[in-house]
């Protein structure tokens, strides 16, 4: 057991999988340049010292190449783990992710499969609109992809190992303010936590209950799972007990754990940093509207980033991204509904 940041937990997972399986390799821009950063957020820094530059591959700034090479090599038995530096760059490789990786198994009638991992740092962090987005919902919409979003060190290692062993393309959203990497981020949250030394995996599709409560179920991922817990601490002083659920993986999604919680609370709030319009919370809300509406004692509440590009100016960014204050207000309204 060691106390580790998410960045180090991810690195530890990748290194253990690379030791165990020669098919696993890392690829991306600035992956491991001596004197460089190790991707943009230090996750791959130092891996080339152990595994060499043939298994920690530095690429040109060519996102189509990176994604396509992952598709092609994974069909031949390799297990690439690509570092995208910023999730926003996923759009530069969209054809390879959506038309190629996601559809190859299906179009071939199951004759080929594509076990690749795309690591996409996400979230607003005072970098302006093109290095800030939370893009989970785009990819939850694509059949054939799996989408995961670890928010603790323990989950980061267990889910990353599971992703590398999965036989399908997995997009991993990693929040910049949760990494806890050496590269200091303003407003970062210290997520350093206990991580077992040895091998363990966390199955996809199992949510984690971060806090128990009887009044409101709050489903929140990544940074928002922390904001929701902060809000819950304050709300508890007013006598409002929130149950905070971190879905951990969005595809597959653990509806069962959320349903069981709402059965107890009768109230549901969904919080994400992804935009409001068609964000993944809309899918969860519609699931309840279709299947479990009679469990609800109040309308479903959604707290999400406003439908704007992410602004740079810190006060504007803080305004657009959901804050604990917005969650608290929404919770008070829910209790009055």
């Amino acid at each position: 057991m060691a106390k580790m940041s998410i960045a180090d937990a991810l690195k530890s997972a990748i290194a253990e999988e690379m030791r165990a399986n020669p098919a696993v390799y890392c690829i991306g821009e600035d992956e491991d340049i001596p004197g460089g950063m190790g991707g943009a957020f230090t996750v791959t820094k130092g891996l080339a010292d152990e595994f060499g530059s043939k298994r920690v591959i530095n690429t040109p700034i060519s996102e189509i190449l990176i994604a396509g090479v992952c598709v092609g090599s994974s069909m031949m038995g390799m297990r690439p783990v690509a570092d995208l530096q910023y999730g926003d760059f996923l759009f530069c490789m969209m054809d390879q992710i959506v038309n190629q990786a996601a559809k190859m198994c299906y179009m071939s009638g199951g004759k080929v499969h594509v076990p690749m991992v795309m690591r996409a740092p996400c979230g607003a962090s005072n970098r302006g609109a093109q290095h800030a987005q939370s893009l989970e919902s785009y990819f939850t919409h694509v059949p054939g992809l799996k989408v995961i979003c670890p928010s603790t060190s323990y989950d980061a290692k267990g889910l990353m190992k599971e992703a590398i062993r999965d036989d399908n393309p997995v997009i991993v959203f990693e929040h910049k303010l949760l990494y806890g990497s050496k590269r200091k981020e303003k407003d970062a949250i210290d997520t350093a936590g206990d991580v077992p030394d040895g091998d363990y995996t966390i199955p996809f599709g199992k949510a984690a209950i971060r806090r128990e409560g009887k009044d409101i179920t709050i489903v929140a991922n990544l940074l928002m799972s922390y904001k929701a817990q902060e809000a819950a601490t304050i709300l508890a002083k007013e006598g409002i007990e929130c149950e905070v659920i971190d879905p951990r993986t969005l595809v597959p999604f653990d509806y069962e754990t959320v349903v069981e919680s709402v059965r107890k609370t009768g109230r549901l709030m969904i919080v994400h940093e992804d935009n409001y319009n068609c964000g993944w919370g809309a899918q969860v809300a519609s699931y309840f509207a279709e299947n479990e509406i009679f469990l609800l004692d109040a309308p479903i509440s959604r707290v999400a980033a406003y439908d704007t590009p992410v602004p740079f100016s810190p006060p504007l960014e803080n305004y657009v991204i959901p804050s604990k204050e917005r969650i608290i207000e929404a919770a008070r309204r829910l209790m009055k509904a």
Partner: protein
Amino acid sequence: MKKMPEKKKALGMYERMYLIRKYEERIYYLFLEGIMPGTIHQSTGQEACAVGMLYDLRLDDYMASTHRPAGHDLAKGVSLRSMMCEMFGKADGCCNGKGGAMHTGDVAVGALTANAIVGGNLPIAAGVALAYQMQNKDNVVVSFFGDGATNEGSFHETLNGAAIWKLPVIFVCENNLYSATTSIKITCNKENVAADRAGSYNIPAEVVDGNDVLAVNEAAARAINRARKGDGPTILELKTYRHGGHSRNDACGYRPKEEEKLWFSRDPVTMFRALILEKSLVGEEELLTIEKRIEDDIDEAVEYAKNAPFPALETAMTDVYWNGGKN
């Protein structure tokens, strides 16, 4: 300069070219009859490119094709029956009916699922080559694309990557002069749209008569040899011509009649047939026997495919995620 191969290889190449020609003709008539679903992008006229490039590949060397894949697939050895079944959307198709005309292929014979996004297969082929390299194999992969793909970002990103990593991949541009209906002359300032750009990436390139199967085969041998030795990628630009339109409803109103006449007079199948007879490899009778057998095989495949069952509806829900190959 071009050397006629020994009889077995020459006839083997001719058989595949004739198979592709007759297969595409039959598909065309099945469409006119209205009994085949979907659309078609035919390779008639480009048979020498497919056969010349692929004839000497090993079974476990890979080939990546495009929205016009039938010639490549048949040349690489995908079974005629499974191709025909796929065209009809039947369960016995090479993709179990889930791929269709633009996605045929069978990795069992090294034919990757064909790619209907222009330029889409280039980085994937580079990935296949990277895997070979990492696995210390001496295999090679051939990536086919059209003239239009040379204006895609994926072309340039992949060429650069393949060059710096010395990947065992052969980039084959089948330049049939038109990207769908647009002349390549108005979308690129280079005459040799692929080969003239090779220098930018320090990749050796050749411009080849794509209607001369022996010329293609000899250029292929040089490129395959380079790749197998670990000397990296080659670009081959094969000048060729579609006999038909881009797709089902294209009557080619944009092509000058004189240009068509010139190219049709250089039909790759007719030219190679005449050469075989001229060199007295076999007589007319023997060729007719071979041709009759191929036509019978196609008749059989069409009958089989027409009568074969459609996939069970529940199979629409499988293979979205891999199930360990249990289907």
